[in-house]
């Protein structure tokens, strides 16, 4: 949002300069591209999130609106707090001793950090896919069914497993060996199994923490295709070290950076094509052009 305002202001200024010079201004780069049909709603609203590991602050006052049914990428150098911020969205940081979080994360109008909020229920609505594929050491079927079982799913389990695996683009490869161990699959298949496992509990939001960093380029491509497809049904937030990946799969990109005080802050948040073609902040520019430091 902030990014857009700045963006608009810049454009107005540029137009003024152009008019002063006696030339007309055509529409900006963005306007020439097809816009999504409808303006998406907000799926996650982070308000002034700060996080401390013990005494050490890791995330500083981040406010960010994640659009619904879009892929939002968090990029930034190592240690910029992007994974930590991601884990604030499903209270995964609660599992670490000595973590303190300030601020609010609003999902469906409710703050997930409000007292009496059950973290396990938050995590059911906000699924997660991790850096290294981590299927349970169980059968493919049980991997997908586990979350549904423990969350009291009463529907037809076989249908749910098939539907989830199909959505994760894995069904055709495993439908004849559902009893096989999830660990017997290839890395890319394991990661898609983890995606199936995440969506089997019918979340609204799926968080992905560098989901392709352990995969080869072809497996990576499949996951990237899947991300865009899943965005039809889910809101996706993905942390990635791979800027090309962020450029390829995301609609919105947030750039985070921890400067001298080592506190990760949000530097710029805007449409992905804006970030990669015309970033407004010089630090964003330095990072994405590889001239960092």
């Amino acid at each position, binding site marked *: 949002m902030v990014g857009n305002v700045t963006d608009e202001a810049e454009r107005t200024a540029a137009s003024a300069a152009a008019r002063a010079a006696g030339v007309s201004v055509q529409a900006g780069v963005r306007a020439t591209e097809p816009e999504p049909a409808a303006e998406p709603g907000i799926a996650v609203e982070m308000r002034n999130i700060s996080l401390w590991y013990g005494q050490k602050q890791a995330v500083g006052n981040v406010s960010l609106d994640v659009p619904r049914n879009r892929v939002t990428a968090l990029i930034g150098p190592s240690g910029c707090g992007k994974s930590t911020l991601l884990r604030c969205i499903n209270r*995964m940081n609660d599992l670490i001793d*000595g973590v303190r979080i300030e601020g609010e994360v609003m999902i469906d109008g409710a703050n997930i950090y409000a007292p009496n909020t059950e973290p396990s*229920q938050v995590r059911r609505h906000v699924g997660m896919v*991790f850096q290294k594929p981590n299927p349970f050491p169980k059968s493919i079927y049980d991997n997908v069914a586990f*979350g549904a079982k*423990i969350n009291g799913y009463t529907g037809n389990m076989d249908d749910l497993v098939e539907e989830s695996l199909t959505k994760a683009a894995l069904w055709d490869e495993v439908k004849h060996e559902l009893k096989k161990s999830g660990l017997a699959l290839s890395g890319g298949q394991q990661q898609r199994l983890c995606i199936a496992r995440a969506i089997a509990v019918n979340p609204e939001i799926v968080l992905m923490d560098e989901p392709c960093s352990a995969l080869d380029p072809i497996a990576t491509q499949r996951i990237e295709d899947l991300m865009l497809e899943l965005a039809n049904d889910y809101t996706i937030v993905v942390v990635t070290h791979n800027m090309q990946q962020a450029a390829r799969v995301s609609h919105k990109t947030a750039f985070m950076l921890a400067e001298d005080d080592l506190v990760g802050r949000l530097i710029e948040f805007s449409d992905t094509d804006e970030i990669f073609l015309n970033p407004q902040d010089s630090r964003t520019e330095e990072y994405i052009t590889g001239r960092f430091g």
Partner: protein
Amino acid sequence: MAATDMQAGADRGLYVPRLSFRHKKGAAFFAICLAGTLVGVVFLAFLLLDVWRDGAGFLRWEFLQNFPSRFPERAGFQSALWGSLWLIITTALLAFPIGVGAAIYLEEYAPRGFVTKAIQTNISNLAGVPSIVFGILGLQLFVRGTIGIGPSIGGGFGRSIIAGGATMALLILPIVIVAAQESIRAVPPSLREASYGVGATRWQTVWHHVLPQAFPGIMTGTILALSRAIGETAPLIMIGALTFVAFRPESLLDPFTVMPIQIYNWVARPQPEFQDLAATGIIVLLVMLLSMNAIAVLLRQWTGRRYGR
């Protein structure tokens, strides 16, 4: 510039490989390590050979069926064998749930802090306490039912199997806890995250993922701890496991004796036949120990192989 030199392939004699010297050093190290291994194997072989030579003579079915006797040819091992079995099962049933429970608490629930650290240190130290001390503790707590110099806190169990089992359980509890903790800690955090990630509670995560994954390790640790218990003598002498028991224990409150005590008792006799009987007892004890270790190994392999890792 070094880089230029390397490109030219000339290191100006700065590298002296001395390959043959390095290979000799390696060979010497290998020899030392092999010798270290062989010392243990050779002495074990001697021991087994010696025991077998002395004890094989009495190794027949009657030995396991007879009760102890003043006459070597009629003396047997039955009461000691059954006593050991009763004792070890009692010990296992007490130590396993308590030990695993404590390990789960310490690893999954306890907040990281001073108190937890203190408890942890104490448990590790307990593993090093001499077994006789546990015997004294068992005598007071379970046999007499008092706590040291204070008044009686109940009847106590007398010199019974349950008193012995409880004492043994205390003895091996630190080992079981530490082994279980190690196994639980070895469960990759990514597995827990995966479980929490689909909305599992802490209990569901521990029950469905952590424990099954840690189970082989816990079992191995527990069985190895039990095989230590089965060879223990000192604490049982302390709590008065009888040396002459001419009947099979029928309940937890029966008096009993165990194999090591029976062996000790035979060794203490002057007649040479009893020396040989002791050797036969040692063979039986060793067979039982090795079987337990084999079970531990099999369990580990079987549970570990289930999902093809």
